[in-house]
């Protein structure tokens, strides 16, 4: 079974600085999807960014980008020019197209603190 590991329970960053959140995963599959979700204090999980394993180019969404290292099974999230509104729990998630109805496997989350 696939597993997702987020080794940083909590990270801190100052406004306008850059922070990187780590995620590693374990799989024997060659094709899969990876996601970063954000959960602010309002609690609704919001998709931040997604990456398809067969694409070599790293995904980017405005200030958010990923460093996808397929051989190392690593999928880190970089947040540039951090803002107070970025404070949230961040979850890394894995999806296989081959498992039943594309279930998501989540990591344990990283709490990001942003200070002025």
């Amino acid at each position: 079974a696939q597993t997702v590991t987020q080794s940083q329970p909590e990270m801190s960053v100052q406004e306008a600085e850059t922070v990187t959140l780590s995620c590693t995963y374990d799989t024997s599959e060659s094709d899969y999807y990876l996601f970063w979700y954000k959960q602010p204090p309002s609690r609704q999980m919001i998709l931040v960014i997604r990456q398809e394993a067969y694409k070599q180019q790293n995904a980017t969404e405005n200030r958010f980008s990923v460093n996808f290292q397929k051989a190392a099974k690593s999928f880190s999230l970089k947040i540039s020019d951090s803002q107070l509104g970025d404070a949230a729990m961040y979850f890394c998630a894995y999806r296989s197209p081959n498992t039943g109805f594309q279930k998501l496997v989540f990591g344990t989350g990283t709490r990001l603190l942003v200070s002025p």
Partner: protein
Amino acid sequence: DVKVTQSSRYLVKRTGEKVFLECVQDMDHENMFWYRQDPGLGLRLIYFSYDVKMKEKGDIPEGYSVSREKKERFSLILESASTNQTSMYLCASRAQGSFNQPQHFGDGTRLSIL
């Protein structure tokens, strides 16, 4: 815009009660999911449904059941609530067949069993 609505944000029940958590989506999605979120454990899948009246067990189904009588509604049932079921419960939905599409989540129900 996608909307997943969970009927309660906070719920307090007593041990042994039968508890219903309701979730409604307005996107005509085939797939719906119930997760449990606990600190240090992330989100764990309880049950999911891929069509009306169809369901599959997730990773932690014990003590739970589900009902999907209509496509837009997916209910999580705690048959006899216990204190170890105190948790945050998240519902999600997703369109079938769109492999790279994300799941859309509700705001969560924080359930306390006394």
